């Protein structure tokens, strides 16, 4: 076996999302759309201006990009509907900038934890790659709320969050190998 061949596991996972993956990604898309709407709510509140407003708008756009990326992965299976439960949990805390930052940090931590759990269930590599690239940025966005307006290492490193990820079992894939009679 050459090194190049050895790079890939013997049973190469599928690139495209499986049916179970699609359900998981539908859920992930819902929480990303909830995050997009929460940032829009904060940005439209009139409590923020200039660079701070630009940052909140940027973060909202990132979540919109994630929802669109999932659209690309699951195509017609996409529901494009936000997770209302997650939205309702946080929307009431956007009233003051101080509680808003704590709430948005908690939101980002929840998304990072949820997407990480979803990643652990995905079979398809295309979705796994994209989700991994989303998770690192959501962790960064969470940490930003611990560093601004003033730097707190404890807050920046606070990753406590409950994952909302559903558990969806993968159906065993049928093998394409055939048995040849002796």
């Amino acid at each position, binding site marked *: 076996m050459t090194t190049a061949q*050895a790079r890939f596991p013997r049973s190469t996972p599928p690139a495209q999302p499986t049916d179970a993956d699609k359900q998981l990604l539908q859920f992930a898309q819902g929480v990303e759309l909830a995050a997009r709407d929460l940032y829009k709510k904060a940005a439209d509140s009139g409590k923020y201006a200039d660079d701070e407003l*630009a940052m909140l708008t*940027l973060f909202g756009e990132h979540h919109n990009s994630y929802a669109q990326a999932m659209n690309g992965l699951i195509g017609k299976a996409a529901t494009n509907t936000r997770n209302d439960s997650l939205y309702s949990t946080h929307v009431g805390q956007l009233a003051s900038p101080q509680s808003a930052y704590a709430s948005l940090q908690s939101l980002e931590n929840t998304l990072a934890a949820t997407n990480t759990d979803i990643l652990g269930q995905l079979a398809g590599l295309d979705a796994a790659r994209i989700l991994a*690239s*989303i*998770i690192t940025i959501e*962790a960064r966005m969470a940490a*930003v709320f611990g560093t601004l307006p003033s730097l707190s*290492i404890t807050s920046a490193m606070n*990753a406590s969050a409950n994952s909302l990820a559903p558990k969806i079992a993968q159906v065993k894939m049928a093998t394409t190998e055939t048995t040849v009679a002796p």
Partner: protein
Amino acid sequence: MNNISRRDALRVGGLSVFGAAFLAACGKQSGVVPSANILSEGAVTPTTALPEGVVTDTVLLRTAASLEYNAIELYDLILNDGMLTGDYAKLTDAVKRFRDDHQAHANTVNALAVSLGGKAHTCANDRMNRLYIQPALKLVTEKGNPDTSRDIIALVHAMENIGVQTYQGFVATLAAPSLRAEVMRIATDEARHSVVFAQVLNGGYASVGPTNNETTGKPNIASVPAAFGSLSSVLLSVGTPNVDNLKPTLTLETPSLNGLIYDFVDCQ
């Protein structure tokens, strides 16, 4: 009647003599001891080929552990050599905490490697050290560099980003989906380290997203440099500025195939 002329007989005879001499030269010669060395002067030292490197989940986890030890060594150097001075001295507690975080990460990935039947790897990645860390440290600590503390933080910031990218990149190669989640939990921790240092090096709301240096056009350090986590190389500007006030720039990359900690690699 025989038609062979005298000239033909001489030609055939000459060829026979030449052929015999040629075959004799190719064969063993009496009195000569056979040698493995062909047409060489002196004895050639026998070589031992490296074992075949097979990239498995265990190898990836051991490689991750090696990078964690690179970070631990770097943080220990900062603490032991008192490299944080002035305002940067306030970061001492953060540096201690992050070093401990990396030790916990190393323990986690090593435990995963052992659970898969592999060996724990408890030392730094020599190739990463030689290619990136030592050259950067040379620039950071050279005489005349007015920003040693700032530059050493820039170096650990870059190494945190390399750590994040390494784990993110491994997701596409790890065979077990559960391992992908395990390594990304570590990656998120290191992404948070990176944000703390990014805010120290280039703080404020305006520096959270991507911006570029107006003079050089190079990207500034950002807490959230892009919408999606990048896997491209990491730029690091450290050392004594030149006449145009520009620091030398190094390019750091995640471990390639010849930087992986294969099963046959041991700590020296």
